[in-house]
């Protein structure tokens, strides 16, 4: 059999391969040769073959069939064989392999070998991949070598002992006597490895601490100082010395300083020392070396919570790091900057962060924008500043903000009643000629729709008044509708805004009608649906249009960004908009409830079904539906009556689904018993109750209507009215047919706002067709369980 090719020859050949396939072919060929050589138990070339196998293994090819050969090499007498054998063992075997048992014996022999390099190989292998069984079996030999006079072996034995202790901690006892002398070592290598060993031991055993109090070693100090006041105090001086005396012109010096800082942070240091440490990090920030700046920022981030004031002193340096070229440093600097924002520096910091937002790479924008939103919400010095800031974000990084930014801003604007005129002007100016930032355009469209009258009247004290005509406003909304940069959602906002303006503008109603009817044939289903609904509103139900398009009430704060106490602790935001206050259009809902009561009193000319939310014009796109779903405070528009036929026939089911899937209430029934509100002629209506936990004065009632007769009840309409002190919102029913034989139910959700916690009373009116005749009934429900209103 010819001698197999040499390792270097093989490497060179493999490197000539031009494609992956060619390389694979070469390697398969060689592997076959190596396998057959292994089978023939060839001793001469085993070493060469294993070495070649290791090369192929590095290229990613399987080499497990060489595992046993490695063991054979280790058992060989030749040093070359052992060297490659041990190397192969470290690379090819991992801990779980059974071959380990066989290896233990070889290693044991080699640990007692006469040549230190063979002993070294054995120690190194044991210290690298020794399993716990191996460690147990060989710990004795390692301990012996730890006491030898040969420093080459002693340093290796110390590190090997570290591995043994990591694997089998209870073996630590065995090494204790040997460590006594290790600290008096003169040889640097041994001294260093001994420190590693002692550190490992101390980390594992708190009992050992007493022995090593005097050791002047930083890492050791750090572990010793954890949770130990006495030793921490003793170390303060030493650390202060190291911190002030270390040469920092070289990286090693900085590495030592860094370790010192970590130590100071870790032990219970006195505050002066901690400030010193933070100042070291502050100096690091000015270093030319980006790596040092990076570790400084990382460490400051870790400590900013505990040593806030000390870190605050380096604020300007940290903010300067926002301009760094390195993105990793920029990111840290950004995180740290946000951590440093507080009520006192908010204006200055936001200026820097907004500038950063403007100039930074796209990957930062989303995080930076939401960071700014959060900080602004927490520390805004005034509402106007808050609105300005959010608007700045939307104009500079509009397309990067997260989805919830739009409803959040709308909510903020709605709740700042005195800012409406100002805001709508600013937004109008912002979108003049630039519709590219979708979230901005959406907010602007919403506000223009809502406050268009304020815009046209030009009443604004803070801004210099602008002259805008109604047509100009409509022009801009129409161009948003047309623009190919607008998304479907944005168009929905624009169309709804135009619709709302029909009640706010005086002389452009015809133009609005035209626009709305054009979009009745839009290919965008969502838009078309809206347009058709609005069109119907113009044509059939024009008398209700103004009530439906009423201004939105103040919205209740939805706590999405953590618990409310965050807001309270700052004391800088006015709590007013966050609390539930009666909407500005206060009298409205009660008067409508009155109307309804009147209606119920016998005046039944208009068939009324309170399916208002779905046909409500404000529902432009999913976002707004979400918004509505989140309103716990029932305002007038929601309860406003709307025609029964329109929603039930023309509403595609998905819209209803979208609504009924809203999280209307946050807690599942907390044990409020349900009642039977009505039971007559086979029709039974049950009420189940839930109390909202965001607003305790809201009771959510789910009605279930079932039919025990043998025929379906069709065109079923449920209506309800409550006394003036309550407010009521009826959501749309699940269907209008109550199937016969109790085979199904209609469910409908009623929300009752009961701010004075009075006893609940309700009048209900039922109309349906049964057995070919129209049925109608009135009833009063007085048996509400006390838990449902108290």
């Amino acid at each position: 059999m010819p001698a197999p090719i040499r390792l270097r020859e093989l490497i060179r050949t493999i490197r000539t391969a031009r494609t992956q396939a060619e390389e694979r072919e070469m390697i398969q060929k060689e592997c076959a040769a190596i396998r057959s050589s292994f089978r023939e138990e060839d001793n001469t070339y085993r070493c060469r073959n294993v070495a070649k196998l290791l090369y192929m293994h590095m290229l990613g090819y399987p080499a497990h069939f060489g595992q046993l050969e490695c063991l054979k090499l280790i058992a060989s007498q030749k040093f070359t064989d052992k060297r490659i054998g041990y190397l192969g063992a470290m690379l090819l075997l991992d801990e779980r392999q059974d071959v380990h048992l066989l290896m233990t014996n070889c290693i044991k022999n080699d640990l007692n070998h006469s040549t230190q390099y063979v002993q070294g190989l054995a120690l190194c292998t044991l210290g690298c991949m020794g399993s716990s069984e191996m460690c147990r079996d060989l710990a004795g030999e390692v301990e012996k070598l730890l006491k030898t006079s040969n420093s080459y072996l002693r340093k290796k034995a110390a590190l090997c002992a570290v591995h043994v202790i990591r694997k089998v901690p209870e073996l630590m006892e065995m090494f204790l006597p040997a460590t006594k002398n290790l600290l008096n070592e003169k040889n640097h290598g041994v001294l260093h490895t001994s420190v590693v060993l002692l550190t490992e031991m101390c980390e594992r055993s708190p009992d050992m601490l007493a022995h090593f109090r005097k050791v002047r070693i930083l890492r050791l100090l750090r572990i010793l100082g954890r949770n130990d006041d006495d030793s921490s105090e003793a170390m303060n001086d030493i650390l202060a010395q190291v911190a002030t005396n270390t040469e920092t012109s070289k990286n090693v010096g900085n590495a030592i300083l860094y370790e010192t800082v970590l130590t100071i942070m870790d032990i219970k240091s006195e505050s002066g020392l901690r400030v010193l440490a933070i100042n070291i990090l502050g100096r690091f920030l000015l270093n030319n070396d980006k790596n040092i700046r990076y570790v400084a920022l990382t460490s400051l981030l870790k400590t900013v919570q505990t040593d806030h004031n000390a870190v605050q002193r380096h604020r300007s340096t940290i903010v300067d790091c926002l301009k760094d070229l390195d993105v990793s440093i920029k990111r840290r600097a950004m995180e740290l900057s946000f951590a440093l924002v507080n009520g006192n520096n908010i204006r200055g910091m936001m200026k820097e962060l907004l500038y950063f937002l403007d100039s930074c790479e796209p990957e930062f924008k989303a995080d930076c924008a939401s960071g700014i939103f959060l900080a602004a919400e927490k520390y805004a010095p005034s509402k106007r500043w808050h609105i300005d800031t959010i608007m700045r974000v939307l104009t500079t990084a509009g397309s990067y903000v997260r989805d919830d930014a739009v409803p959040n801003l709308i909510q903020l604007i709605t709740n700042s009643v005195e800012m409406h005129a100002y805001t709508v002007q600013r937004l109008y100016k912002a979108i003049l000629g630039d519709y590219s930032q979708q979230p901005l355009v959406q907010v602007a469209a919403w506000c223009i729709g809502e406050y268009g009258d304020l815009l046209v009247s030009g009443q604004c004290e803070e801004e210099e008044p602008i002259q805008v005509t109604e047509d100009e406003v409509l022009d801009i909304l129409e161009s948003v509708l047309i623009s190919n940069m607008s998304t479907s959602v944005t168009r929905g906002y624009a169309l709804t805004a135009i619709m709302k303006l029909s009640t706010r503008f005086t002389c452009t109603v015809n133009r609005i009608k035209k626009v709305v009817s054009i979009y009745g044939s839009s290919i965008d289903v969502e838009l078309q649906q809206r347009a058709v609904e609005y069109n119907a509103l113009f044509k059939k139900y024009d008398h209700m249009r103004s009530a439906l398009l009423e201004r939105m009430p103040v919205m209740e704060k939805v706590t999405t960004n953590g618990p409310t106490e965050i807001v309270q602790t700052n004391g800088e935001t006015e709590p007013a908009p966050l609390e539930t206050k009666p909407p500005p259009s206060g009298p409205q809902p009660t008067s409508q409830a009155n109307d309804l009561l009147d209606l119920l009193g016998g005046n039944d000319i208009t068939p009324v079904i309170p399916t208002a939310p779905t046909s409500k014009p404000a529902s432009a796109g999913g976002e707004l539906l979400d918004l509505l779903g989140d309103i716990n405070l029932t305002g007038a528009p929601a309860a406003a009556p709307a025609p029964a036929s329109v929603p039930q026939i023309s509403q595609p089911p998905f819209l209803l689904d979208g609504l009924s899937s809203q999280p209307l209430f946050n807690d599942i029934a907390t044990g409020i018993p349900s009642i039977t509100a009505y039971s007559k002629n086979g029709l039974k209506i049950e009420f189940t109750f839930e109390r909202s936990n965001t607003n305790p004065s809201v009771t959510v009632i789910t009605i279930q209507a079932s039919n025990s007769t043998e025929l379906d009840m069709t065109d079923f309409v449920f209506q309800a009215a409550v006394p003036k002190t309550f407010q009521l919102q009826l959501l749309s029913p699940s269907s209008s047919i109550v199937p016969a034989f109790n085979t199904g139910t209609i469910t409908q959700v009623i929300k009752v706002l009961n701010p004075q916690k009075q006893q609940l009373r309700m009048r209900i009116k039922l109309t349906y067709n049964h057995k070919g005749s129209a049925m109608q009934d009135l009833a009063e429900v007085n048996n509400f369980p006390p838990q449902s209103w108290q």
Partner: protein
Amino acid sequence: MRSRGSRPLPQGSRPRNRGAGACWPREAARSRVSKTLCPPPALSGAAACGESGVWEGIVSRSESGCPASGCRPALSEAGLRWESQMRFMLLFSRQGKLRLQKWYLATSDKERKKMVRELMQVVLARKPKMCSFLEWRDLKVVYKRYASLYFCCAIEGQDNELITLELIHRYVELLDKYFGSVCELDIIFNFEKAYFILDEFLMGGDVQDTSKKSVLKAIEQADLLQEEDESPRSVLEEMGLA
């Protein structure tokens, strides 16, 4: 300083062997790792000049073997621990070819491959201006590029990144001294030597010796032992062939 001639190269001399035939990353592989080794600008800023720039204060003193506590090397004096637990060290080329892998924690072959592939992608995607550290999975990764080769260490949360960078640099210095102006091809063709040096320098992720001299001496001696093995056999071989 060792000269090329005196270096033991038992399995055929490296300079003759390397570089023959076409190969993909040949040009890159030839460039001297030590080119970037001499001035490590990121390491020491202004202080870096000459081969021992960074190490002057430490290495020369420790190599002088002065045992008195007064002139201990700076690192030992401060008692700085090199690592708490290094997880692994990788060497790979700019083309994403693995050149060396050392694992200090038992990891299955499959997992190793996955981690190597993933980490290579992350590191190779970094721009030159970026700093040498990154957080990856639950580890901190410290990497540095020397010519066409990336040296990459994964360490744990408590570890000192700066010192890991020094450690990488020292390993490169060791390779450079051993091979004499080392380049990627040296490491490809003599990968086992690179492993031997690493194992003599680090064990379980901890530094065994702060002195370059003693590491290289041990390697040299072991190489000599290997030569003793080989020489009688090669005579026999020749006779057999004759």
